[in-house]
C-alpha cells in the first residue's frame, strides 16, 4: 500500500487540521518539548551540614565522608562532602512555597493541565537518573534550570494508558559551572475506572505458612506459647533440628524436647533484595543462627540494620506476631 502522508499521530505529521483527538493532543504535547519547565530555581540555603545530617538520619546512611568532619579532613578529599543523591534536595522550594504556587505559570504546570484535561489525571514518578560532575561541599549554592525534554506517545502500562513526560535538570554552582544533571520521568495516566466488578484492594500478602506435620507440630505449638523447643532423643539425648520422627544416631522413635534459652550467634546470613516478594522488605536479613545448645535454625533478624549484621553476632530470640495468624521466632541482637 502506498502512503502519501504519514499517518496522523506520527511525529512527522504536518498535514491539514486533524479530527483525530489523539493526534491533536499529541501535537499539543509535542509543542512543549524543549521548553523551559519553569523559572530557574535558586537554592533556599547553601549546601550545609545540618541538612546533610537530617538527610543521612532519614536514609540510614552513616558514611563518615558526610558526617564526620575530623575523619573527612584526614581523608583524600580533605573535607566533608554532601551525599551526591541529595542533589535535588538543595533546590526544592519547601512545602509552604510549593503549596502557594504549585508550578504556577510554568510549562510543566501547563503540560500537566493539558494531560489532566485529556483524562490522564493520575501521576506517578517512574524513574530518575542523576549524573555528577563534581562533589558538592558545604557552602556551595546551587541553581537549577529545567526543560521538558520529551513527551512520549500514548503508552499502555500496568497502571493504565498514559504519556511519559521527561524533564531535564541542569544544576549550576555559584561559579555558573554545571555540577550535575538529572533526568526525571513521570507517567501521567488515566486511572482504571472503578466499577462494581473491581475487587476490593487485597490485604498485604501474608508470609508463607509453615507446613505442620506430626513431626514438627510441637515446634510451632511451642512458638505460639513463647518457647523455642529443640527435639531431643529420649534414648541417647541427641538434639536435632529440623525435627524428624527418628534419631539418626540411635534410631530411636522416642523423643522429648528441650526448651532453648534462645541465645546464640549468627552463623551465616543473607540480605534478600530480588525478586521483591511482599511482605518482605528489600534487604530483609535472614540468619542461620547457631543456638548455644548446639543446633542451628533459620530465622529472620529484627532490630538491626542490614549493614550491621555480621557472622558471630550474638542474638536473642523473641516471638512476634507477624500478622493476625502467624507467630514466628525471630532474633534480635543482644546488647553487650
Amino acid at each position, binding site marked *: 500500500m502506498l502512503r502519501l502522508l504519514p499517518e496522523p499521530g506520527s511525529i512527522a505529521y504536518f498535514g491539514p487540521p486533524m479530527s483525530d483527538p489523539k493526534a491533536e493532543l499529541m501535537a499539543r504535547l509535542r509543542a512543549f518539548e524543549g521548553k523551559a519547565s519553569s523559572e530557574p530555581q535558586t537554592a533556599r540555603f547553601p549546601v550545609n551540614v545540618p541538612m546533610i545530617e537530617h538527610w543521612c538520619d532519614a536514609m540510614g546512611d552513616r558514611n563518615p565522608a558526610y558526617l564526620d568532619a575530623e575523619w573527612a579532613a584526614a581523608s583524600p578529599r580533605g573535607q566533608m562532602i554532601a551525599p551526591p543523591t541529595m542533589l535535588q534536595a538543595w533546590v526544592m522550594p519547601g512545602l509552604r512555597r510549593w503549596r502557594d504556587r504549585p508550578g504556577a505559570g510554568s510549562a510543566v504546570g501547563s503540560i500537566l493541565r493539558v494531560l489532566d484535561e485529556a483524562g490522564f489525571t493520575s501521576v506517578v514518578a517512574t524513574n530518575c537518573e542523576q549524573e555528577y560532575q563534581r562533589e558538592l561541599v558545604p557552602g556551595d549554592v546551587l541553581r537549577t534550570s529545567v526543560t521538558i525534554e520529551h513527551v512520549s506517545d500514548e503508552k499502555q502500562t500496568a497502571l493504565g494508558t498514559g504519556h511519559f513526560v521527561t524533564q531535564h535538570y541542569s544544576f549550576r554552582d555559584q561559579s555558573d559551572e554545571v555540577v550535575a544533571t538529572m533526568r526525571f520521568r513521570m507517567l501521567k495516566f488515566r486511572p482504571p475506572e472503578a466499577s462494581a466488578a473491581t475487587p476490593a484492594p487485597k490485604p498485604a500478602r501474608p508470609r508463607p505458612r509453615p*507446613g505442620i506435620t506430626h513431626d514438627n507440630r510441637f515446634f510451632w505449638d511451642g512458638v505460639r506459647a513463647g518457647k523455642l523447643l529443640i527435639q531431643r532423643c529420649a534414648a541417647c539425648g541427641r538434639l536435632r533440628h529440623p525435627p524428624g520422627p527418628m534419631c539418626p544416631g540411635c534410631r530411636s522413635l522416642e523423643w522429648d524436647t528441650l526448651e532453648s534459652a534462645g541465645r546464640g550467634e549468627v552463623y*551465616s546470613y*543473607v540480605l534478600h533484595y530480588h525478586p521483591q516478594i511482599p511482605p518482605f522488605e528489600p534487604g530483609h536479613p535472614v540468619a542461620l543462627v547457631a543456638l548455644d545448645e548446639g543446633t542451628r535454625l*533459620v530465622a529472620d533478624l529484627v532490630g538491626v540494620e542490614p549493614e550491621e549484621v555480621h557472622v558471630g553476632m550474638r542474638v536473642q530470640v523473641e516471638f512476634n506476631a507477624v500478622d493476625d495468624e502467624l507467630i514466628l521466632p525471630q532474633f534480635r541482637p543482644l546488647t553487650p
Partner: protein
Amino acid sequence: MRFRSELANRTAIVGIGATEFSKDSGRSEMSLAVECIAAALDDAGLAPEDVDGMAAYTIENNPDAEITRNLGIPGLRFFGRTHYGGGAACATVLQAAMAVVAGVADVVVCYRAMNERSQQRFGTGVQRLSPQPTAESAHFGWYAPFGLLTPAAWVAMFARRYMHEFGVSSDDFGRISVADRKHAATNPAAWFYGQPITLEDHRASRWIVDPLRLLDCCQESDGGVAVVVTSAERARDLRRPPVLVRAAAQAMAEDQHMMTSYYRDDITGLPEMGLVARQLWETSGLTPADVQTAVVYDHFTPFVLVQLEEFGFCGRGEAKDFVKNANLELGGGLPINTHGGQLGEAYIHGMNGIAEGVRQVRGTGVNQVPDVENVLVTAGTGVPTSGILLGRA
C-alpha cells in the same frame, strides 16, 4: 571405601540436539522437547524407531509418554526420572548407561525442555506452600515464613559462611562470571553472544541476595537439549565419533536436605558432590590432571569454587587462588564452561553442559580446547546431584 562400577567406557553419547536458547520461545515446552530430541537423533544418525528408553528429571513438565507419542516412537522398555532439579542432569546419563549395560534398553534419550523464562521462573522461589502435611511442606516451612524463599537465597547462606571461613571475596565469585561470559561471547548459540563482561561489571551489578549479585546468578532461559546414549559397541557404527561415558555417578550425603543442608558441622563444602567426585575418579581410574576441560554447574558462582575443591583441582579453601589469573578461561590451566555456562549460554538445567562436554570430546566446540581426552561434567549443586566423565574412544 572403594567404589566399583560396571559402567566404565561401556556406553557412549552418540547424538546431541538443541533448540535455540531464548527468553520467550513462543511455543510449547512439548514442542521444544520433540524438536531437540529429533535433532539429537538426527545428529546420531538414528530414527525415533530406534529409541526404546528415556531418562529425564522429575521437574520436567513433558511426560515421556507424551513425547513418545508425539515423536512416533513405537514403544519404550525403560523410562526413569530423577529428582532434585538440576541435580538430575548427569543422572539422566547414569540412568541411561545403567539401562543399556543391563540390557534393559538399547537407545536411551535424555532430555530437558522448558520455558523457564517465559512460563515458570524458578528464580521467584517458593512463595506459597502446600497446606498438605507433607515432608516437603514441612521442609519449606523452616525457610519460607522467614523470607528465605529463593534458590539464590538458599545458596547465598552457604556462600556467606564460605567467604567468612576462607577469606573469599565477591571478586573471586566474579571471576567465574567473567570466564563464562568470555566464552559465551564467542559462542553464537549463547544468549550473551558478543557480550563479555569485566570484573568491574560484576562489582557494579545489583544485589540479588547479598552476598550474591545479579552477575553471580545464572540466566533464566527457554530452550531444550537432548542427548542420546547407546552401547559403546553400537556407537562405533553410528554417524559421529562416539563419546564414551567413562564414569557416571549420583550422590547425596549425610544430613542431606534438598537445598539447605545447613546443619552439618561444616557448611563450606558440598559433600554430596565430593561423593560424586570420589566415584568418578575411582571408577574411571582418572585424576584431575587427566581432565583438559570441565563443565562445572554454575547456577550460582560460589558453588563453582566449592566444586573445584571437591573434585580435587585445588585444596580446600584454595579455589579463590585457583580461579585467579584467568586460569578458568580458554588458554588457562583448566578452561571451564567453554560454551559460556548457564550464566552465559543458557540455563537448561545442566543438559546444555552435557552437550558441550560431548562437543569438546568430538573436537567441535566453538571454543575448542586443544587435545581433549577427558571432560568432567557436573550437575546441580546444593542438592543431591550427579556427574559424568566423558572421553575419547
